């Protein structure tokens, strides 16, 4: 999902380093796992295994970066939205995503990393973010497809995260999920307007679906056989469902929505299995996915450049805010003195 980079087998990460565990540590670990098994929430100052902390920092910060970078493909259309109604909706949605980034960075900070460290990792290109935001948005229909499919896939993944064992992350996800549902609905409504519009508008909608369908399925991350950290993250209750389970749920929910729009999912192998009640779908092109994770997607470079530019262009604002705060403190002191 927004943190699919964690699942790639080439990554080093959550594996506990092979060192001796002391008796005391083993006891702490046992107690920790008992609490997790009992569905107790772990809070920032509670004891937790190093691997748990490391995994969470990586997952939450990747998630935060995804929210922030995710503002870019849609921000591309704010000034060109066709009506005021669509414009305020898009503006509100993109603003929400910025807020989601903040909630998540704050949750990551409770684990002992600094905001500047995390932002530094994003700007240097060291940190990962969801592959989905490295695709371009050449037409207005892309805004509909993103809300419907990308936010739809995000919701599918994020609802179970509301029950994540780490308290601050779970609480941030509750806020986020509450805000997400309008994102998907405004996207679907937009697609509906296009699908019921002129022949050319319908063609635009179909074209956007063609381009966003497979990347949306990739958002759930590698298939379970290829996924490196699933079982430990399940045991820690950071993750509740496997990538393939969530992907299947998304397909089952989305195919009828496409049918209602009168659009065709770009997968000749897609068919409903009457016995299981689930849709079967074709093979995903993981080469494309891996290339994007490596930084070779259509927009990887552009996205990071845009973030760097925003950071550099904002430097004077950050400096001015500090200077202004200092001046206000001085003034208050003088008044008191």
């Amino acid at each position, binding site marked *: 999902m927004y943190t699919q980079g964690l699942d790639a087998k080439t990554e080093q990460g959550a594996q506990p380093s092979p060192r001796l565990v002391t008796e005391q540590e083993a006891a702490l670990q046992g107690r920790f796992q008992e609490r997790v098994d009992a569905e107790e929430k772990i*809070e920032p*100052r509670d004891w937790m295994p190093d691997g748990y902390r490391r995994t969470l920092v990586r997952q939450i910060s990747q998630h935060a970066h995804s929210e922030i970078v995710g503002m870019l493909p849609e921000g591309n259309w704010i000034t060109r939205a066709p009506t005021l109604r669509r414009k305020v909706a898009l503006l509100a949605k993109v603003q929400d995503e910025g807020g989601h980034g903040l909630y998540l960075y704050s949750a990551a900070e409770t684990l002992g990393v600094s905001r500047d460290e995390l932002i530094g990792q994003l700007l240097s290109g060291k940190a990962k973010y969801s592959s989905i935001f490295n695709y371009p948005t050449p037409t207005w229909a892309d805004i509909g497809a993103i809300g419907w499919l990308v936010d739809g896939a995000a919701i599918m993944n994020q609802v179970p995260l509301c029950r994540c064992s780490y308290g601050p992350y779970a609480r941030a996800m509750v806020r986020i999920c509450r805000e997400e549902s309008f994102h998907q609905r405004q996207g679907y409504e937009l697609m509906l307007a296009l699908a019921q519009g002129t022949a050319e508008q319908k063609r635009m909608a179909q074209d956007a679906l063609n381009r966003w369908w497979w990347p949306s399925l990739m958002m759930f991350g590698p298939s379970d056989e290829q996924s490196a950290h699933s079982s430990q993250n399940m045991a820690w209750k950071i993750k509740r469902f496997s990538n393939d389970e969530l992907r299947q749920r998304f397909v089952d929910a989305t195919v009828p929505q496409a049918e209602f729009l009168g659009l065709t999912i770009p997968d000749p192998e897609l068919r409903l299995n009457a016995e299981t009640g689930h849709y079967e779908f074709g093979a995903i092109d993981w080469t494309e996915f891996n290339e994007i994770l490596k930084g070779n997607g259509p927009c990887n470079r552009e996205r990071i450049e845009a973030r760097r530019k925003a950071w550099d262009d904002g430097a004077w604002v950050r400096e001015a*805010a500090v200077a202004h705060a200092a001046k206000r403190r001085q003034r208050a002191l003088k008044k008191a003195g």
Partner: protein
Amino acid sequence: MMDRKDWPLFEIFIRPKNGLSHKHVGSLHAADARMALDNARDVYTRRGEGVSIWAVPAASIAASDPTDKASLFDPADDKVYRHPTFYDIPADVKNI
């Protein structure tokens, strides 16, 4: 690249509506308290979530240690006489 070490962390508390107490909702960095309030309004009350905001410097909060949980809170567990159900009143007595 200038960092924001000069922007302390503020914990944000929101009163959801008149008559209720403030509740912790999250945190943010800001140059000072006034900026913290402005930004809290934008990120934590975009949908009418509140009628009042507190921004508290995170460094000013004193917190109990989770490892003291047992010694702090367990003593209350065996004091059933602090609860109304501990006291036997005949069923015929009303309004008590």
